[in-house]
Each structure stands twice: as structure tokens, then as C-alpha cells.
């Protein structure tokens, strides 16, 4: 009789590793995929709030106000961005996303009083129309970068890197380069498009300062200029962005998603969002610029608790990408046979690179896109943003805060030693912050 107990799987070579070795052996090319890091990393889940008790008093839920407004760009911009909630929609290109998905995100964000962001390829008319507050990404590729669009933007985000691939450029595989996408990017239809990883006309922080000045001159110093970096050497990056004249810094942790990137980039480059927030806030405080240059944090934000914890550590706002797509039905158990055809299942899908998104989010194919009705999809995103905001307010009130920005590290403790070290809050039940020298 076959004895199952004698089968011992290898920790070094679990089934997914064996499958990847054999895929590489067949194809001779790195694996390119969408979505964010799948490995386990220390997250905001490893922190908990210390709700009010005898030593602190809470605010009454539903009765006492807990403000959620945020102003971004108070440093230089004549017209700072005013947000009603501290949750923005991250940059995602038309091309990576279909037009319906872009429109749905724009409609939802506008209803909620927050911003959406363009991506590689420039601004579409649809997204400008549907987004009350639209952040225009200024990317290394400069695909579709037009000064008229720059002047129509409510803020400009100079993208140095993103959490899924700090140090890497964008990718959009040929199957997603339709005629419209190709025209927007001035590229032949159907090619595997590789975006540049460095800006073509500046390198280093001194040049960045001059570039930011040029963008301000072109837009007459009206709108805020953000600098977005993937989380790696976050202390230096934040300090240099501030020195270069940024109004806001966006730090994107390694859990941040992508439409198509080498798996090895997604899983093995960058640091998680949790330590990145702390490093960014420390850098701003060292320069006495905390709250003067706003900090937006992204990468794996899923719940109102994540939002509240990021704010408590000192962020001014967060940005969501993958979670917003999930509100649009990414990985929902619908059209399961189409997930199967991609070799995956709902809950496991990361196949945005194929252009065959079963739920019509990251596709340019009309019959798949039709599965995403923009108005209904916008309602789901709006509901999700509302839930996140209510959860964040609930936690803030429990800690006695009348504005979500009044949350502070002192309201948090860590459940694991590594989270305590990274977030620099004490391990629960102790006064111990690993690495701080305290007992």
C-alpha cells in the first residue's frame, strides 16, 4: 500500500518553485506578470491600536466629528489639492486598464472627493471628464506626455519609480498594444513595449530640482508637484525629493501592484510599506518638513485599519491600486472558465499582463471590457472607499481623535518583533522597540 506519510515536500523546492523552474526551462525568459508581491512580508496587520480607556477618552461614534480632510501641496502650489478623504487612487495607465475601469475609478473618486491618477500613455479625455481631481503622472517614458494635458492636471506626479519595480521601467506586452494605445504612445501596434527606467533628460537630485522648476514654470506654479519613489533607500529618497522642491512625496512599498513586470522584480526588489512609512516620516521630521511636505503611502493598503495605521505612523494620505481594482471585481468568482483558460482561479489571478482579464478590468478587448459597466463599477468603488473611511474614523475615534491626522505612533503597538523594529513602536505588552536601545 502506498504510504502518503512518506511523502515529504521540500521547503527549498515547493511545487510553485518546481513549476517555475520548468517554465523557465521551456521558455528561456523571465516570468512577466501583473499584481503585487505574493510573498509574506511584515504588514500593518502586525500592528494594533491601543483604544482609549481610563487614561484616554474616546470620541462618540456617529456623534462626535472625526475629520478626514487632507490638503496636499501647501508648500509651493497656488492651488493645493483638497481631498475629503485621505485615500487616493494610484496611477494606472489607460492601456494597462481598459477605458471602463479608468472611468469607473474617476467617477468613484470624484463622488468621494478624492483624486485619481493617470499613468504611462498620458491622459484620456474620458478620465479627465470623469475625474474632478486628476493627478498627471510625469513618467520616464513620456509616452503621450503633452503640455496641454499637464496644464489640465490638478497635480503633477514625477514618477521616479514604483513599489513593484524600483529601478525598473514599465512593460506592456504586445497583446495589449491596440491601435488606440499604440497611437497614444507613438508606437507600432502589437509590439512588446518596454518603458524607460530613467528619465530621458535628468539624472540625480540636482537635475530633479531643475526639472521640477521647469514643470512649475510651465504650469505657472499653480498645481502641486509630487515625487513618487518605490520604497528602497527611502530616507535618502525622501530627503532628496524634499530638497529638490517636491510639494508631496509618494512612497510605494513592495506590495504595490503592476500591470506587467518581471516576477523577480515584484518579489525581490524593494522594502515593504510598513518600514517605508516610518523611514519616510523620520526623514521628513529630520528636515522639519513633516506635514509641510505631505506624505502619501501606497502598496498593499486594503482596509480602513491599514489606512489608520499608515496615518498614525505619520502619513498624510494613502493611495490604493490593487484594492481599487478588486472593488471593480478583480479576482471575483465570476466567469471562472475564463480564469481557468489563463491557468488560474479567482483569488490567485495575477494575469493582467495577458490583456485577457476575465472581469474586464485590465483588458482592451471590447467583449471583456463590456463585463465592467462603469456606473455600477463606480458604485462599488465608492462603497469600498466609504467603508475604508468609516473604518479609519472608527479607529481614530476609539483613540480619541477628532481628525484622522491626530492618530500617532503612540496609539500603536506591534504583535511581532519584526513589525516593532520596522514601525518603531513597542512590542505589545513591553516597552521594547528593537533597535532603539531601550530595555
Amino acid at each position, binding site marked *: 500500500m502506498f504510504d502518503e506519510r512518506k511523502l515529504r515536500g521540500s521547503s527549498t523546492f515547493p511545487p510553485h518553485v518546481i513549476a517555475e523552474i520548468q517554465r523557465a526551462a521551456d521558455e528561456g525568459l523571465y516570468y512577466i506578470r501583473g499584481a503585487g508581491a505574493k510573498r509574506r512580508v511584515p504588514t500593518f496587520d502586525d500592528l494594533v491600536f491601543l483604544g482609549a480607556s481610563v487614561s484616554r477618552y474616546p470620541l462618540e461614534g456617529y456623534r462626535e466629528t472625526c475629520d478626514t480632510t487632507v490638503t496636499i501641496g501647501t508648500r509651493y502650489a497656488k492651488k493645493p489639492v483638497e481631498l475629503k478623504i485621505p485615500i487616493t487612487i494610484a496611477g494606472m495607465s489607460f492601456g494597462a486598464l481598459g477605458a471602463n475601469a479608468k472611468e469607473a475609478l474617476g467617477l468613484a473618486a470624484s463622488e468621494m472627493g478624492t483624486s485619481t491618477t493617470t499613468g504611462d500613455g498620458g491622459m484620456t479625455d474620458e478620465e479627465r471628464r470623469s475625474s474632478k481631481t486628476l493627478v498627471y503622472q510625469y513618467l520616464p517614458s513620456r509616452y503621450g506626455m503633452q503640455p496641454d494635458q499637464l496644464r489640465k492636471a490638478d497635480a503633477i506626479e514625477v514618477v521616479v519609480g514604483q513599489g513593484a519595480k524600483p529601478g525598473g521601467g514599465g512593460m506592456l506586452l504586445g497583446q495589449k498594444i491596440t491601435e488606440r494605445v499604440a497611437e497614444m504612445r*507613438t508606437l507600432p501596434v502589437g509590439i512588446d513595449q518596454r518603458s524607460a527606467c530613467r528619465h530621458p533628460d535628468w539624472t540625480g537630485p540636482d537635475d530633479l530640482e531643475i526639472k521640477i522648476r521647469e514643470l512649475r514654470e510651465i504650469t505657472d506654479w499653480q498645481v502641486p508637484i509630487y515625487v513618487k519613489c518605490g520604497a528602497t533607500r527611502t530616507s535618502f529618497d525622501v530627503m532628496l525629493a524634499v530638497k529638490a522642491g517636491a510639494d508631496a512625496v509618494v512612497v510605494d512599498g513592495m506590495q504595490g501592484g503592476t500591470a506587467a513586470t518581471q516576477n523577480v522584480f515584484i518579489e525581490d526588489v524593494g522594502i515593504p510599506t510598513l518600514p517605508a512609512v516610518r523611514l519616510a516620516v523620520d526623514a521628513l521630521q529630520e528636515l522639519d518638513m513633516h506635514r509641510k511636505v505631505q506624505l502619501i503611502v501606497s502598496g498593499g493598503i486594503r482596509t480602513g485599519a491599514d489606512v489608520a495605521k499608515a496615518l498614525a505612523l505619520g502619513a498624510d494620505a494613502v493611495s490604493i491600486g490593487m484594492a481599487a481594482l478588486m472593488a471593480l471585481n478583480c479576482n471575483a468568482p465570476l466567469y471562472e472558465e475564463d480564469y481557468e483558460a489563463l491557468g488560474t482561479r479567482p483569488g490567485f489571478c495575477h494575469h493582467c499582463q495577458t490583456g485577457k482579464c476575465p472581469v474586464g478590468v485590465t483588458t482592451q478587448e471590447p467583449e471583456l471590457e463590456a463585463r465592467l459597466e462603469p456606473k455600477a463599477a463606480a458604485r462599488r468603488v465608492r462603497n469600498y472607499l466609504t467603508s475604508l473611511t468609516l473604518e479609519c474614523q472608527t479607529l481614530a475615534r476609539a483613540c480619541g481623535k477628532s481628525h484622522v491626522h491626530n492618530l500617532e505612533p503612540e496609539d500603536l503597538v506591534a504583535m511581532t518583533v519584526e513589525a516593532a523594529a520596522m514601525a518603531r513602536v513597542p512590542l505589545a505588552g513591553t516597552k521594547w522597540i528593537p533597535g532603539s536601545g531601550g530595555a
Partner: protein
Amino acid sequence: MPKVDLSTDTVRDLNQRLHDLEPGTTETDWRVINPMGAHAVAVGLEASVHVEIDGHVGYYCAGMNKEATVVVHGNVGTGFGENIMSGTVICHGNASQSAGATGHGGLVVVKGDTSARCGISMKGVDIVVGGSVGHMSAFMAQAGHLVVCGDAGADLGDSIYEATIYVRGDVESLGSDCVEKEMTPEHVAKVRELLQRAGIEADASQFRRYGSARKLYNFNIDHAANY
């Protein structure tokens, strides 16, 4: 003719005045003196005006130009005429790196030499250089024409898409996926037209043409060494 002295006025004043011009303005001829290497001079212009700059300028002069003609009587820093959409920008001296970078349309003329990455990621602009260009020129160039009357540095046209490069002198080396192509009478005529528009005298028949071999357009394991 409005005259702006950058030893007394700021670049901000200059740009704001140029941005405030209404379509159909009669103030179409501008002179800028004492630029003293200032950055972002005459950027983001949208009106059909003519701006003459006497002296050297810093980075991004005439960046994102639309419609206007900007003429620099001096040298220019990095990113001269970057992301130009239309109009003409002319430098009578030498240009630093990334001249005409990412330009979508219009004409960029450098009468002297340019440094590295001239025409990087160009997207439809025409660039004519009277002298030589530095290494990695026309890197990832997507569309438009780069005409070089002198020599080209190493790795010309690396990862080029559909742009066309014409060089009269020596090419130190070609970048990945960039190859020499046949020069037909139509190409000679195109070079002649571009030289004429740029006001540069050279014999169009002496140029050679370079463009994409289109082998890197789709990922292919057999070309892995070139990626």
C-alpha cells in the same frame, strides 16, 4: 518689441508674460538679454511668437514648446526644446545632453555639437545638428528624424523604434537593433528638406541612413543578449 533683461527681471516674470499672451497678440517679437545660464527660459510657450535670446541658457530652454520660435544666440544646457510639440527652436551654439528629448513635433536645430542622448525617446520631432552628437543619441527614438552633419558617438539609435537617423560623418558604433539602411532618392530629398528648414548647408547625398532592425519588438529568447 518687448525686451526682457534677466539681470533685472526673473525667469518667472518672463515666462508668465509669455504665457499670458492672447492668441492673435501683436506682441510677437521678443528679445531676452543677459540670460546668464538661467534654467527653464521660455518654457511652455503656446503662442505663435518669436523669442530671441542673447547669451547662454541653462537646462530645458524652450521646453514643451508649441507654435513659438525660440532662437538662442549662445549655448544651451540639458534638455533644449525637450518634449517640443510644434514650432521651431534653434541654438546657434552647442547643446548639452538630451537636446530635443521626447519631442512630439516641430523642429529642433543645433548649429554646433550636442552632447549625449540627443533625440532620446523622440516621438515625431525633427532634429538637425550642424556638428556632431554624443553617445546614445536617438536612444529609444520612436518617431521623427535626426539629421547629424558631423559624427555620431557610440551606441547610436540603441533600441530605436520607428525614428530615422541620417548621419554624414562617422558613426562610432550602432546600438542594439539599430542598422544601416538603404538611402533612396526619397531619403536624400527628405534630408535636403530638413537641412533647408534648419538653414544648414550640407550635401544631402553624403548622408547615410539608420533605423530599426525591428528584432527587439517582441520578446524573443534568441535575442536575449541584446536586451
